[in-house]
């Protein structure tokens, strides 16, 4: 009120005001478009201003909504890109004027599709070992006497393996959901990454799958970072485990930790067939497998790298996977060091 000389009516500011929204907005009088904001002009074409809106948005539900009671909303497809889904909302503004909002629901639709895909994949992954288990149980029920002892032992061995695979899968699903749940909570404790890597690699060696193939290069002094030590340990287990499983038999797996400016760099390099370029962008998707048969044969759940990605994200770090077919794969994880987080 102090600047009485500079009264600007809302009417004059309207175009700028409407343009400031990145959602398509149209001001209509009757059915004629008085004003379309920049987003609406991009979606429908610049000609819409001054035209009947029903020429541009021809979906029968939209026509019905505009011609009907004057307000409400309708779901539309096929505006702009045919894959996109829109909600059109009409609200009255004064006597004959109305505001039309177009709300983009494409992302929600895509997220919904991903969610159903995930449920379908997870159910499939859980059902496969279960089917094996049940088949063997039925066979064992029919087997008789001590003559079948050798077969029984072999079957029980397979059953044990399948049951453990299901257990691993359920463990992985649970840790994935736990990591996702604390996605926005930064880790508080300050840990020494060098000793975490040393301990995790010792555990892997003790597990028996490494067979003396691990080559560790760690810094002499502690490398502090704000991190969740159990998650970092899981990350090392998953990455190094992959390198051992998919690397050439007897080939070395080099694990290097070093300080790099304000961050800590963990490198895991294997010698193996590597991964072709097409697969690289999708490696961290849940249940994505380069070679499904082989992954199951080595006991993979299809969730290892998805878990790694979520752990790295929670620690505000960066994950890079580079691979040269025929030579090997190199996974690098950059984590911010303690000083930087503070």
């Amino acid at each position, binding site marked *: 009120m102090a600047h009485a000389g500079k009264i600007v009516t809302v009417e004059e500011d309207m175009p700028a005001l409407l343009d400031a929204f990145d959602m398509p907005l149209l001001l209509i*009088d*009757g*059915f*004629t478009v008085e004003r379309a904001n920049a987003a609406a002009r991009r979606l429908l*074409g610049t*000609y819409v201003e001054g*035209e*009947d809106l*029903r*020429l*541009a*948005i*021809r*979906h*029968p539900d*939209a*026509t019905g909504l505009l011609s009907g009671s004057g307000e409400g909303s309708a779901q539309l*497809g*096929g505006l702009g890109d*045919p894959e996109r889904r829109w909600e059109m909302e009409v609200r009255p503004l004064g006597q*004959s004027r109305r505001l039309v909002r177009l709300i983009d629901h494409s992302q929600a639709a895509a997220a919904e599709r991903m969610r159903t895909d995930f449920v379908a994949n997870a159910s499939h992954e859980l059902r496969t070992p279960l089917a094996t288990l049940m088949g063997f149980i039925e066979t064992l029920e029919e087997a008789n006497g001590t003559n079948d002892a050798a077969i029984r032992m072999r079957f029980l061995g397979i059953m044990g393996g399948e049951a453990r695979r299901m257990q691993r899968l359920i463990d992985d699903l649970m840790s994935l959901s736990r990591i996702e749940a604390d996605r926005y909570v930064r880790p508080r404790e300050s840990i020494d990454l060098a000793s975490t890597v040393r301990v995790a690699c010792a555990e892997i060696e003790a597990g028996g799958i490494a067979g003396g193939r691990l080559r560790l290069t760690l810094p002499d002094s502690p490398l502090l970072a704000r991190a969740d030590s159990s998650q970092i340990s899981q990350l090392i287990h998953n990455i190094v485990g992959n390198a051992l499983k998919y690397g050439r038999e007897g080939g070395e797996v080099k694990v290097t930790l070093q300080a790099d400016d304000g961050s800590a760099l963990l490198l895991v390099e294997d010698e193996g067939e590597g991964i072709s370029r097409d697969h690289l962008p999708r490696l961290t998707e849940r249940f994505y497998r380069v070679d499904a048969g082989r992954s199951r044969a080595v006991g993979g759940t299809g969730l290892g790298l998805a878990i790694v990605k979520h752990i790295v994200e929670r620690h505000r770090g960066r994950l890079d996977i580079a691979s040269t077919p025929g030579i090997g794969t190199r996974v690098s994880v950059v984590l911010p060091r303690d000083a930087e987080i503070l």
Partner: protein
Amino acid sequence: MATVPNIRSADFDLAELRRLVAEMGGLAEAAIDDAVAALTHRDTESAAAIVKADQRIDALEAEVERRVVRLIGLRADQPDELREILAALKIAGVVERMGDYAKNIAKRVPLLVEARGIEPLAILPAMARATSEIVHAALDTFAARDAEAAVRVAQSDARVDDFYNSLFRALLTYMMENPHNITASAHLLFIAKNLERIGDHATNVAEMVYFAATGEQMGERTRGIDTLTDGN
């Protein structure tokens, strides 16, 4: 409409005419999308609804004709407007045909309920998407009176033709492999042909838009290779 000053009643009638044609277009677009969705989901109920909804398109076409006759009388001295009125009439006719083709696809849905596992069926939704895109684009050029965009739309019809030609060959092979597939394959071939005709009609819409805007006929359009050597 009272807030728009100096509007002549004939202007208003032409706008209303264009609005009716756009409404027909919207119904035809929805009919095409819904018919193909009904086909892929084997949804006979929705197919029956599409067949019934076509009456509305027919009724709108009759309304367009009635208004055109009246407008021609009123605007006989305005060549530009007459051209637009005639184009609207012709587009209404073409859109009515598109609606019929969509209806025809819907009518075949009950006959295909049992046809599972026919591989070429997987290509139809992609062809249908390409067809809807071109229909939508053609009606957009009509709404925008955009002659340049109309030329681009007319050229893009080749994509739908290419789809038709590849489906034609795939379905023929399928019929030859197993005589049991012939009935279903023949229906699918008709459906593909319907989509191909819808694409052609979308091109006709674009040509009409071009004519209304420029007063000239659009030149020979670039086509995909035709299945029939003498064209259609």
